[in-house]
């Protein structure tokens, strides 16, 4: 068990967009996270169960789905992968006005909806929920 304390935290990233996926993964790696990439719910559950270091946080890009559906997907993944119920779920909102930019909204016990004004905002939120 002692060797696990040195392992960087793992983020389970569900990113459907082909343009965004490699850059987001790169940016997370650069900040010291291990990243497990999935394209859909079942895939995410299987991956989260299989990796040696269990995900410490689930990160999902909203893409074209309604927000509630995205959070439900996150909860199913958390449950299906038998992750602790306090494992944070972070959803990146897709469409929003300037008035929402820069806001991180807590929508559940450990669930967050972020309206990014820049990439640093996401990194700050992840670091707060899951320090490297």
């Amino acid at each position, binding site marked *: 068990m002692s060797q696990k304390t040195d392992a960087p935290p793992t983020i389970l990233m569900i990113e459907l*967009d082909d*343009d*965004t996926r490699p850059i987001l993964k790169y940016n997370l790696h650069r900040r010291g996270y291990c990243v497990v990439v999935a394209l859909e719910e079942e895939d995410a559950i299987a991956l989260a169960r299989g990796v040696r270091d269990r995900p410490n946080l689930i990160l999902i*890009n909203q893409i074209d789905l309604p927000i509630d559906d995205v959070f439900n997907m996150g909860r199913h993944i958390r449950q299906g992968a038998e992750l602790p119920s306090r494992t944070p779920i972070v959803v990146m909102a897709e*469409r929003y006005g300037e008035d929402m*930019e820069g806001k991180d909204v807590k929508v559940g016990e450990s669930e967050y909806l972020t309206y990014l004004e*820049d990439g640093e905002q996401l990194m700050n939120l992840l670091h707060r929920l899951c320090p490297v």
Partner: protein
Amino acid sequence: MVTENRLLAALPRELYKKLAPNLKRVSLKQGTILHHPGETIKNLYFPIDCLISITVTMNDGSTAEAGMVGNREVVGVNAFMGGRETTQTEYIIQIAGSAIQVEAQPLLEEFDRNKDLRDVLLRYTQALIAQISQTTGCNSLHVLDQRLARWLLESQDRINSDDLKLTQEFLGHMLGVRRAGVTQAAQKLQEKNLIRYHRGHVQIIDQQGLESFSCECFRVIREEYDRLLGAKDRDG
């Protein structure tokens, strides 16, 4: 600071004097659409310090940029071609500023009888085709972070400023990608100390580094423009 359009400045002095009564300086606000698809072009615009995007909109409302028009270019080349309507494209002001507006009719009349004017406008049209061709290839083949770098360089080169006032949403429309993609690509460029990005402002802080990071398209287009329109003084 830019005070003139370089394409207009390249015209012979006598020809410029002749056109002068038809030239009018106008201010253009961000988001203004100069030509809608299908409209006959009534005015051409020679940008001074504004930046204009040529965009294509699909049936589902998604958009992408097909080309850019800035300080050594002109909007409305269709005006002196066979069909004088814009085609499927829109011309939208991306960075506000001023331009010289000229009515299409007198310019077309002069185009028909003046070889010097024809030479300048046709050389520019050739450069524009080169730009659009390269953009097509770039959009298909290059990754988003390289394309964003190239796009910022193209914009900077056209308005001669390192500070670009652009939102993520607007950049997403121009690059034809999702907002999250722009956010992450900008973050990557920022972490490499190439740009600074905050709340709708992009500042290029390492020009050489950004050029090295970008795909080859910026250099290819710049060389083609320099060949066709004369090298641009980039020191001032």
